[in-house]
């Protein structure tokens, strides 16, 4: 049984409201933090080894230490709640059921960064959650955790909730800032980074919801204690939103020491494959990270067990590994078609490209059209090589990571499932009636047995 830090009290009745939350020891970290200096809090976060939970996995303490502190210029903390990555729904769970945990983390983080005005930018599709958050903010304010001179420390803080209009790209931090300023959500060209010039040209830190809630246990336990949980540079706990062909889809908190096999097949977590099917492939970190076939998912290319943490999931680079990403764990069973799946992802990225820079704008549309042809049996053999070439010309040549996010899944699907693409081309009629199945990706569990 893994240790739970964030979802410890998730099952408590009324935890969404202040009274129950406070009874379970809520807001203790604010009391503790306001007696510390902001620098000491940043130091604690650095010691904890907490890494950004939004996808890139950048060390949070380091990010916080980059923020510029010019005299007389206000600084801002922005909470990135624009959780739009297909397959990821962990932030929604946190905000919907334990909103006070986020508010608590935001107050501590705002104090550490010197942000008197803090924003939560929430995606437009989460239409009912802003109300929950605003109620939590109001409750916190009534009880003196927000507003002027919090707990007599002289620190003022206000939190505002801003709704997006339903654009995936606004989860990119500079696009989020543009959108928050009331402009079109186009990513900015970096440098300057938001830590120097962010919201209204002021130093800004943008952090994911889960990262900011993880600040609460970091302060409560202390950085060194927090760093003992987990393994290596993957410290603390991570929320994984599991979905796909598994028995128990949902949000799970793991301490990053369990193996992928245990995560999928143990009853504590996903509960095994649904309907007794076999595991074919899995996207371990949200739609943008490379897909892995079953054999590479459970064991790395070196034959070692793959664990659910940053290092192990990316072991082998993109050739034989993937990424932790945002924790959107999508499991595909033997009945799923990788070509159709890749087409669906490509369609998503084509729809969500902002259209600012040419490789992403034109390339995503082109990839979608080719994949649609292959999926519907109209493809040619040369299309597969063309796809490979296009994704290579998008990746790394765009303003923001959306180009990479669109290119990686296509690249990984061709890299690992090329024979399935070729089968689609060779059997244009059969591919409309049935799926390729497991073929060369025999269940590694069975092979071991």
């Amino acid at each position: 049984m893994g240790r739970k830090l964030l979802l410890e009290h998730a099952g408590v009745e009324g935890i969404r409201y202040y009274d129950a939350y406070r009874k379970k020891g809520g807001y203790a970290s604010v009391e503790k933090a306001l007696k510390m200096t902001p620098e000491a809090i940043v130091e604690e976060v650095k010691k904890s080894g907490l890494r950004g939970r939004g996808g890139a996995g950048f060390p949070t303490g380091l990010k916080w230490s980059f923020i510029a502190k010019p005299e007389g210029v206000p600084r801002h903390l922005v909470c990135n709640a624009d959780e739009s990555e297909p397959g990821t729904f962990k932030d929604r769970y946190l905000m919907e059921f334990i909103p006070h945990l986020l508010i608590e983390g935001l107050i501590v983080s705002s104090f550490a960064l010197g942000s008197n005005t803090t924003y939560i930018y929430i995606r437009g599709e989460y239409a009912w959650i802003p109300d929950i958050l605003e109620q939590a903010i109001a409750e916190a304010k009534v009880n003196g955790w927000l507003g002027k001179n919090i707990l007599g420390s002289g620190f003022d803080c206000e939190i505002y909730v801003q709704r997006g209009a339903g654009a995936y790209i606004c989860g990119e931090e500079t696009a989020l800032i543009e959108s928050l300023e009331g402009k079109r959500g186009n990513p900015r060209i970096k440098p300057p980074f938001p830590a120097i010039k962010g919201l209204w040209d002021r130093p800004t830190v943008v952090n994911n919801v889960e990262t900011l809630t993880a600040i609460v246990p970091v302060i409560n336990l202390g950085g060194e204690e927090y760093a003992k949980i987990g393994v290596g540079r993957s410290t603390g706990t991570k929320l994984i939103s599991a979905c796909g062909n598994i028995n128990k889809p949902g949000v799970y908190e793991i301490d990053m020491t369990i193996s992928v096999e245990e995560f999928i097949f143990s009853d504590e977590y996903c509960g095994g494959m649904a309907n007794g099917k076999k595991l074919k492939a899995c996207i371990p970190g949200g739609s943008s990270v490379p897909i892995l076939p079953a054999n590479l998912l459970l064991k790395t290319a070196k034959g070692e067990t793959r664990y659910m943490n940053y290092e192990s999931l990316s072991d082998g680079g993109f050739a034989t590994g993937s990424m932790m990403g945002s924790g959107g764990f999508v499991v595909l069973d033997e009945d799923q078609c990788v070509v159709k799946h890749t087409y669906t992802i490509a369609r998503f990225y084509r729809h969500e490209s902002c259209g600012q820079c040419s490789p992403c704008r034109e390339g995503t549309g082109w990839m979608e059209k080719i994949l649609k042809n292959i999926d519907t049996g109209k493809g040619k053999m040369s299309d597969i090589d063309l796809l490979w070439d296009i994704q290579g010309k998008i990746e790394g040549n765009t303003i923001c990571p959306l180009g990479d996010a669109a290119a990686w899944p296509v690249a990984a699907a061709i890299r690992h499932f090329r024979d399935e693409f070729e089968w689609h081309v060779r059997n244009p009629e059969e591919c409309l009636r049935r799926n390729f199945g497991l073929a060369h990706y025999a269940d590694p569990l069975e092979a071991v047995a």
Partner: protein
Amino acid sequence: MAEEKKLFKVTIDNITVEVEPGTTILNAARQIGGEVTPPAMCYYSKLKGSGGKCRTCLVEVAAGSTADPRPMPKLVASCRTTVMDGMIVKNITSDRVLEAREGVVEFLLINHPLDCPICDQAGECDLQDLSYSHGTEGTRFEFQKRTFIKHNLGPYIQLHMTRCILCYRCVYVADQLTSKRVHGILDRGDRAEIATYIEKALDNDFIGNVIDVCPVGALTDRTFRFKNRVWFTKPVKAHRNCSKCCGKVHAWLRGDEILRVTGRKDQWGEVEDWICNECRFEKKNLTDWEIEGPADINRHSVISQGHYSGKIGTTKPTETFPNIMNGRQPKLLMDIHSVSEVNPPDLNLAAIPGPAHSGDFEEKKEISDKQ
């Protein structure tokens, strides 16, 4: 000496140049000039905030600076990356750059109509030049291109969105030159389009400059549309006393007729000074202008094939039919009306109510037979 020390040394394709801190790689390369300069489709030095979007100016940074000589992992947009002291940049000496640029050109062209034969911009089109210098033969794109309907943005400007490469230059012009911008980008991804809100017209004294900054033929001058090919016209420097703008323009002549007026463009294809709509669209008489002399045109440009002879603005075109054909006058070989049975010259199509049917012609024919 103290001032010299402030300059940053940057090496681009093995050529070292000293530039002021804060200069972008692209502008440093422009100081060297020639092939070393990366092409730029969206960057415009006179427009603040432009650049970084088209990705044609990508370069490889082999060493960040003397202090931190690590190479940058990704290719960077040279128009938005400032130089550091001791930076080593690879442009045309890097295969990675050339490959990426080829990719960008391909991406820009997959939805571009390639209607150069009927496009007014042909001959002075940045995308045309770019595809000649960095593109490949043929296309691998086998799908229908995205198209849009043409829009007239007021009496002077036509928007042909199908040709647009979304460089955002015209948006920056409207933002920075006019008091109120009424056009911008609608929608996103490859469906994004330049548009005005509910078909508004662009009317502002300086809005005509969007035509000059447009790198392709998406925004064209309605007073010049289909009048002539640019390489048949001769650009001359001209000026007039204008109360609104500098009044310094390029007038594009055919014989003694001014076919169009544009801002004066420098060697990078950027206008030297913005001009007002009155100079651009309304002053088309030779008497309105004082001619200074031929404009400087790159000798590799197709426009420079027009020759200047005699006093500018007074000579008729020399390549007239009689001149070429040893004094022979053109002769009408056949009047199509005289032999056509379906479209007799005495039939006034406009007088027929509704669409014309074959019956209209037959009846008429009978009458003419009787006559």
